[in-house]
């Protein structure tokens, strides 16, 4: 049982990874997931979070089998 964790753009570059799995038997808080996978890295203040491809607030709980994504502010479209 696990949570899939994805990282995008500059955050992926800084962490030098784009996807990993966290083995767990219980639901976890988003910050707990980050801290377990990135114990020596502080999450940037402007980090956005999505669970199963929908934006969520940082206090949300991540369930087993969820896909959790961390990414920087978005910059699409034309400037």
């Amino acid at each position, binding site marked *: 049982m696990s949570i899939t964790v994805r990282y995008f753009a500059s955050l992926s570059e800084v962490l030098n990874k784009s996807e990993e799995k966290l083995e767990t038997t219980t639901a976890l808080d988003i910050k707990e997931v980050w801290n377990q996978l990135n114990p020596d890295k502080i999450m940037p203040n402007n980090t956005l979070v999505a669970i199963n491809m929908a934006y969520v607030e940082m206090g949300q709980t991540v369930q087993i089998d969820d896909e959790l994504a961390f990414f920087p502010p978005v910059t699409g*479209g034309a400037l």
Partner: protein
Amino acid sequence: MKIKIIEAELNPWQEMEHYQANMTTLSGKFGATNIFVGTMRDFNEGDVVTSMTLEHYSGMTEKQLAKIIEKTEQQYAILDVLLIHRVGLLLPNQPIVLIAVWAVHRGDAFDACRNIMEALKSSAPFWKKENLIEGSRWVTKNTQGYQT
């Protein structure tokens, strides 16, 4: 409504022609079509930009764009929307994004198109990395849409 994320070069005018030719059920029903095309510039923040790489969160991007359009459809009386966004490597002068909105009246077409574009910029999971003459950098902030 149609949403496409593409890596190939975008020709917005061909896409418009093709899409509208197949909008047979709306024939005679719309009085206004508003089109926005975003194009890659060769400069930003005082630097020459030689190319740009657009990353996105495949799957979430499409979901988020659909949400934006559905919300816009609740706010404005519009009949149809075509949204195409490039990802991957882009060169200056290449179109990045096409948003076309069909409505009975121009006010809804103009406002809905603007609304979709602004919502896209603030919430669709795309990220730009600019390649400069020396090095590259992630674009970290969006502009307000006007010359400053």
